[in-house]
C-alpha cells in the first residue's frame, strides 16, 4: 500500500477503477450464483413439463392451471394468507405495547425482559410447536389436563386445541413476535426526547405528545414489523409441518414439501413456490413505497436519553401483561420440554418417583444420528456465520461508502434473498445442484450456500446501518492524516463496528441453527442437521428424544453465543438486541 498512496494522490479514479471493479464484479458474480441460479431453475421448471415419451422438456402452463383451479392447492393458499394476516396482527398487538413498556416507561428489569424475548427468538419455531403440542393437545395436553382437574370437566372436554387453525396461528405468533418487538423497542429507544420535550413545552398534553410525536415516529417500525411478521408466517415451514397435518389442513409450505414425497412433482412444487415469491416481492415493494418517501430517520447519537414515563400503579397490570406474554413463548414451552425430557411419557408430570434418564441415554448413546447432526449443525452454523458476516461486511462497506459505481445493484442483490422463502430456495437449490457440472447435493456445501443466501439480507441490513452510523468524516480525518483506505478501515471503522459485526455473526449463527425449511429439502443421511433430525423424530412421535435434543441444542447455542461475545478485543456485553 505504500506504493499505492502516491498513485492514489495522483489519480484517485484510476486507483479505484483498478482495484474495485474486479472486486465488485466478483461479488456480483457470487451473488448472482447464489440467487439468480436457483430462481431461474424454479421458473424454468414451473413452466415446463417432461414429455413421457420423448423425455424432452416442453413449455406448458399446466402447473399454473392446476395451482389456481385445483382446491388441493387453492385451499392451502387461502389458509396461508389467513395465517399470515392473523399472526401478523397478533404480533403487532402484543409487541407494540410491550416494546413501549420496555423502551419508554420506568418498567423494571427491562434487560431481563429483552433477554427473554431473545430466548424466544433463539427457540426454533418447530421446537416451540412440539412444546405447545405437549402443552395444549386437546386431550393429553398438560394445560388441558390442568383445566379438567380444576373444573372437573369430563375427559373429552378441552380448553385449548393446538391442532387447529387458531392453534397454529398462536404458535406462529409466539415465535414471530420477537421480530416486531425488537424493531419497535429499538425505534422507540432512538426517538430523542427533545422532540417530545418540545411538544410538552408548546403545551401539548401527554396524550397529544404520544399521538403527534411518538406514535408517528414509531409507526414505520410497526409497519415494518407487521410486514416481517406477515412474511415470516407465510414462509414458515416448521410449525405448520408439526401442527397442520394433525389439524387436517395444508399450508403452502407443507404442500410444497409434500410435493417432493414420492412420486416427486418438482414442476408443481416450483410453480407452487412462485406465488410465495411474487407476494413477498410485492409486499417489500409496498413497504419501500410507504416508508421511502417519508423522512422518518431520527437516528442519531445526539439526542438525550428518552424520557421515561412513570407507570405508578399501572405497573401491576403492565408487569402482569409482560409476564403472560413471556410465559407463552418461553416459560411454558421450556417447562414442557424439560418435563418431557425426564418423563417416561411426555405428557405426564415428572415426579421423583417416575423421573427417568432414558430419553437422555437414548438420545446420546443409542440414537446414531445425534453426533453427526450436532457436528454438521455447529459446523454449518459457524461457517455460515463467518462467511456470511464477511460477505455482508464487504458489500455493506462498498454500498455504504458508495465506494464503487454500480453499488446499487450490489445492494439490491444482497437484499433480494429476503424475498425467497427458505422452502422455495430449497427447491431452487435442489434443482440447480443435483445436475452436472456442480453436483453439490449430498454435501454440506449446498446447505452452506442455502444458509448464507437466506441470512445475507438481514446481515447486510444490520451492517449497512452500522456503517451508516459511523460518519465517513472519521475515516476522512484518518485519511487526511495520511492513512490508507485500508488502514483507516482497520484503525477507525473496524473498532467502531465490532459490536455490530459480532451481533451479526451471532444472528446468522442462531438463524442457521433454527433453519428447517431449506434444510429439509436439501439434506441427505450424511448431511443431516439437528433441525431435520428433530423433524424426523417428530414423525414417529418420539417426544422425549426431541426434548433432550432441543434443549441440548439451545444450551450449546447459548454457550457459543456467549463464548463468541467474550472473545478478547471484541466488544464485551454484545447482546442480540439489535437482531
Amino acid at each position, binding site marked *: 500500500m505504500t506504493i499505492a498512496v502516491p498513485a492514489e494522490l495522483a489519480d484517485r479514479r484510476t486507483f479505484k477503477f483498478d482495484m474495485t471493479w474486479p472486486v465488485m464484479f466478483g461479488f456480483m458474480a457470487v451473488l448472482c450464483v447464489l440467487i439468480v441460479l436457483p430462481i431461474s431453475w424454479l421458473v424454468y421448471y414451473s413452466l415446463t413439463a417432461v414429455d413421457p415419451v420423448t423425455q424432452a422438456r416442453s413449455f406448458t402452463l399446466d402447473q399454473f392451471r392446476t395451482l389456481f383451479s385445483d382446491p*388441493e392447492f387453492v*385451499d392451502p393458499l387461502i389458509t396461508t394468507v389467513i395465517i399470515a394476516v392473523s399472526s401478523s396482527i397478533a404480533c403487532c398487538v402484543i409487541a407494540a405495547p410491550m416494546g413501549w413498556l420496555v423502551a419508554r416507561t420506568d418498567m423494571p428489569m427491562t434487560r431481563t425482559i429483552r433477554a427473554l424475548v431473545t430466548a424466544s427468538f433463539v427457540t426454533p419455531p418447530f421446537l416451540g410447536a412440539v412444546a405447545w403440542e405437549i402443552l395444549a*393437545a*386437546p*386431550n*393429553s395436553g398438560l394445560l388441558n389436563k390442568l383445566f379438567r382437574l380444576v373444573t372437573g370437566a369430563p*375427559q*373429552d372436554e378441552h380448553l385449548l386445541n393446538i*391442532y387447529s387453525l387458531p392453534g397454529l396461528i398462536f404458535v406462529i405468533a409466539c415465535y414471530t413476535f420477537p421480530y416486531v418487538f425488537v424493531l419497535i423497542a429499538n425505534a422507540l429507544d432512538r426517538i430523542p426526547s427533545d422532540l417530545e420535550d418540545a411538544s410538552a413545552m408548546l403545551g401539548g398534553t401527554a396524550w397529544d405528545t404520544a399521538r403527534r410525536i411518538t406514535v408517528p415516529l414509531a409507526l414505520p417500525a410497526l409497519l415494518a414489523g407487521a410486514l416481517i411478521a406477515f412474511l415470516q408466517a407465510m414462509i414458515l415451514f416448521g410449525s405448520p409441518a408439526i401442527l*397442520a*397435518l*394433525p389439524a*387436517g*389442513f*395444508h399450508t403452502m409450505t407443507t404442500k410444497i414439501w*409434500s410435493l*417432493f*414425497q*414420492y*412420486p*416427486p412433482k418438482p414442476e408443481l412444487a416450483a410453480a407452487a413456490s412462485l406465488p410465495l415469491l411474487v407476494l413477498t416481492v410485492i409486499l417489500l415493494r409496498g413497504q419501500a413505497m410507504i416508508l421511502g418517501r417519508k423522512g422518518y430517520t431520527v437516528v442519531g447519537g445526539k439526542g438525550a436519553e428518552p424520557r421515561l414515563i412513570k407507570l405508578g400503579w399501572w405497573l401491576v397490570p403492565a408487569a402482569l401483561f409482560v409476564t403472560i406474554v413471556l410465559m407463552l413463548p418461553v416459560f411454558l414451552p421450556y417447562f414442557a420440554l424439560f418435563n418431557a425430557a425426564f418423563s417416561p*411419557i*411426555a*405428557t405426564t408430570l415428572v415426579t421423583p418417583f417416575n423421573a427417568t434418564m432414558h430419553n437422555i441415554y*437414548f438420545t446420546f448413546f*443409542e*440414537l*446414531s*444420528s445425534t453426533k*453427526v447432526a450436532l457436528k454438521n449443525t455447529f459446523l454449518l452454523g459457524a461457517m455460515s456465520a463467518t462467511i456470511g458476516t464477511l460477505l455482508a461486511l464487504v458489500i455493506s462497506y462498498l454500498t455504504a461508502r458508495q465506494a464503487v459505481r454500480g453499488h446499487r445493484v450490489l445492494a439490491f442483490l444482497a437484499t433480494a434473498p429476503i424475498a425467497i422463502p427458505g422452502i422455495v430456495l430449497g427447491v431452487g437449490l435442489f434443482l440447480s445442484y*443435483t445436475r452436472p457440472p456442480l*453436483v453439490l*447435493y*449430498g454435501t454440506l456445501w449446498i446447505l452452506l450456500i442455502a444458509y448464507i443466501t437466506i441470512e445475507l439480507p438481514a446481515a447486510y441490513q444490520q451492517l449497512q446501518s452500522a456503517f451508516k452510523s459511523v460518519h465517513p468524516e472519521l475515516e476522512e480525518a484518518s485519511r487526511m492524516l495520511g492513512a490508507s483506505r485500508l488502514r483507516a478501515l482497520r484503525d477507525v471503522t473496524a473498532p467502531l463496528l465490532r459490536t455490530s459485526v459480532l451481533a451479526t455473526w451471532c444472528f446468522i449463527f442462531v438463524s442457521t441453527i433454527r433453519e428447517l425449511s431449506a434444510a429439509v429439502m436439501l439434506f*441427505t*443421511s*450424511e448431511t443431516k442437521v439437528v433441525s431435520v433430525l428433530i423433524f*424426523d*423424530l417428530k*414423525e*414417529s*412421535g*418420539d*417426544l422425549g*428424544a426431541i426434548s433432550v435434543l432441543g434443549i441440548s441444542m439451545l444450551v450449546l447455542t447459548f454457550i457459543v453465543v456467549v463464548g463468541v461475545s467474550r472473545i478478547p478485543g471484541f466488544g464485551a456485553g454484545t447482546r442480540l438486541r439489535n437482531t
Partner: protein
Amino acid sequence: MRISRRNILRGTAALTLAGAVPVRVLSAAPPAEAITPELIAAARKEGKVSYYTSVDLAMAERISKMFEQRFPGISVRVERTGAERVFQRIGQEYSSRIHAVDVVNSSDAAHFIVWKRNGWLAPYVPEDVAKFYSAEHKDADGQFAGFRLMLSVIGYNTAQVKPEDAPKSHADLLDPKWKGKMVKGHPGYSGTIMTATQQLVRDLGWPYFEKLAQQSIMQVQSAADTPKKIALGERAIQVDGNEYNLLLLKESGQPVEPVYASEGTPQVIGPNGVFKNAPNPNAARLFQNWSFSAECQQLIIDVAALRSLHPQAKEKPGRKPLKEIKTLKEDAAAVEKQGDEIKKRYSQLFKV
C-alpha cells in the same frame, strides 16, 4: 487355505439347487452364503454400515446395537424415516448419483419391486434365507427377503374405553360415538399404512374410507406414532398403526390394548435388501446375513415385538400367536401398481 468355505458352499449350493430342485434353475439367485471369518474381516475393514429403515427408531437402534455388540468394530448408522420417505430419499439420492445406502428395510414391499426393476439391488442370499424361508417370503432372484412381519392393528386406550365398548371391527370405527376420538397414520408417509390401505380398499372398498373421513380423524404420519398418541391419551382409538409399538407400550405398563378386527387385520411384510452400489458392500452383506439369522429374528420378537418369518424363532408367551389372528392377504404387486392412485385419493378424502 485358498479354497474358502464360501467357495465350497457356493459349489454345493449350486449342485443342490441344480439337482434337487429343478424349478430353481430358472432363478438367478446366487448360491447361499454363510457368515465367514473372511466376510467379518472385510466388513470390519469397512468399519461401518448405513441402514435405511422404516422400523420404529428405538427398535432400529436396538437392532443395530445388537449387531455392533455381536460384531465389534462395525458401527451402524440408522437412517430412520417413514417407508414412503425412505423410498423417496433413496430415489432422490440415486438420481443425483449419491450412493449412501448399504442395507434397506422397508415396510412397503412394493418398493423392492421398483428397486429390483431399476437394477439397484445386489443378489445376495444369506444361508438362513435359503434354508428356512419359504418361497413366498423371498425374491426368486435372491435380491431381498422378508425381514419382519407386522400387523396394522386397531387399538384403544383402556383408561378411556372399556373393553366391552371397544371396537371389534373396522366397521365399528364408523360409529358416530368415535367421532373426534381417533388417530390414524398416513399412507403418503408410512409404508405399513400404505400396504394396509391397499388391503382395506380391496376388501372393504373406498366407501369405507369415505365414511371414515367423516369421523374428524386426527391424522399423523407414521404407523409408529398412532400407538404413542393413544398411550398419551391424546385420542382414545387408533384406526391403524404398528402392532409392535402397541404391544411394547402395553408390556411397559401403558394403558393400551390391540384389537384384531373381525374382518381381518392387515398384514405387512417388511423385506430387507442390499444395494448393488453399497459404499460398504461387505458390512452390508454381513448385516443382511445376520438380520436373517435365528439369533436376530428371535431378537426382533423379544425386543421389538415384531413377528418373524424364520421358523426357528419362537413367539413370545403372552402375545397372541400369529396363527390365531385372522389376517388380510398382502399384495405387494398391487401396492406397486395402485400406490400413487391410493395416495392421491386418500389425500382428497382426508384433506391432507
